[in-house]
């Protein structure tokens, strides 16, 4: 019951699979395609660890079925550093102690990648509001907020030079 063919582009590469309709996008990414950078915390849309970009918009991959992304483009945390070179935001996380255990980090990075793309000059309030959908139990968010603001500044500097 409920098998379905689906074609999806993940981090620039096209995949075609036949999957159970009830397979969530998160489980599809992790178990079928081995993009295990997408982490699953709560599996009911509260913690934000599984956040990915679907056609450029952040979404909780535990609240989507893989079949819904037919003909869509998905970006996971692996897609942020395609050649193994950290993105500006990832480097800023490293430099500002934006992570400790790292479980929430993939979701944080995706959410903030979207924020910095849409709003290159966020203030602290903008960053904190963007992060309301992502839970972190280690850092107290201070390092994450600092990293986001630092990355925004670095990206603006790179755009100017």
């Amino acid at each position, binding site marked *: *019951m*409920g098998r*379905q063919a689906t074609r999806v582009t993940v981090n620039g590469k096209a995949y075609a699979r036949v999957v*159970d*309709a*009830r*397979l*969530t996008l998160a*489980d599809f990414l992790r178990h079928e395609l081995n993009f295990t950078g997408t982490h699953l915390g709560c*599996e*009911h*849309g509260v913690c*934000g660890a599984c*956040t990915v970009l*679907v056609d450029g*918009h*952040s*979404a*909780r991959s*535990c*609240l*989507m*079925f893989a*079949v*819904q992304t*037919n003909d869509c483009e998905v970006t996971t945390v692996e897609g942020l550093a395609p050649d193994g070179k950290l993105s500006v935001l990832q480097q800023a996380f490293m430099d500002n102690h934006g992570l400790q255990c790292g479980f929430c980090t993939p979701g944080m990075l995706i*959410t903030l990648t*979207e*924020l910095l793309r849409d709003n290159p000059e966020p203030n602290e309030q903008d960053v904190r*509001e*963007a992060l*309301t*959908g992502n839970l972190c139990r280690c850092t107290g968010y201070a390092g994450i907020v600092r990293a986001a603001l630092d990355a925004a500044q670095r990206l603006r500097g790179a755009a100017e030079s």
Partner: protein
Amino acid sequence: MKPAPFDYHAPRQLKEATELLAKLPNAKILAGGQSLVPMMNFRYVIADHLVDLGGLQELRGITVADDRLRIGAMTRQRDLEFSADIAKHCPLMTEALRHIGHRQTRNRGTIGGSLAHADPAAELPAICAAHDATIHVASVRGVREIRFRDFATGFMTTALQPDEVVAAVELPIWPAGHGHGFHEFARRHGDFALAGSAALLDVGPDNIVRKAALTLFGVAASPLRVDAAEARLTGQPLDANAIRTAAASAWLIEPISDIHASGEYRRHLAQVLSLRALNDAARRAGMQA
């Protein structure tokens, strides 16, 4: 895999969707999925068929005509949040949207899904109550229009039949220059509101209130219009005292108690938030102090 197995259907047209809903037993409609999928993951909802409306372009979009705002049911909360038409004609909705969940959920969540789900603490049903919206509902029998007050029939319950689907929402536009106010209280930004209040005021150049709407949500099974407050304000000069008296009529409600808050606390919140919402609305409507 957490949800129980189901068959997935992705119609491309509304007609196809209603035909599927008419013939499939125990089918659920998938709109944005931000409430349905968690319920499926918990197996609170077990459906044999899921009809995904994501491919129905005809249910998307915002149009303005004849003093009415028409919003397709599959218009995402994100698109409403950034719509210039909504900001211009229904600024109350723009303000309310920022309180709905988080960016990631607003990117997926739809207005039709929010209405059909009918959570008592949800913002968009409250805005529909405030604006006396009409819900357009489609099935194989055609389209029928339901006034919001007849649509929301109880706790997470609507007048929708199992084979019906919300197609569009129509909101009468308030006159240009009207004032709006929206306040809610939640323990964290994006959480379900313990209580909230939405106010609309249309004030004449003589400072007389021509029209008032005060709506509470999160305090009862569905959004609640405070008739007493509206009656006190309408036709009267607008001043601080009138606003205080109107907000105080929120005292008349008998809110629900649950594990999140007592009814008494919700009643207190209803008054405080109504005062704030009415003050914002009065200021924006150009109240002459």
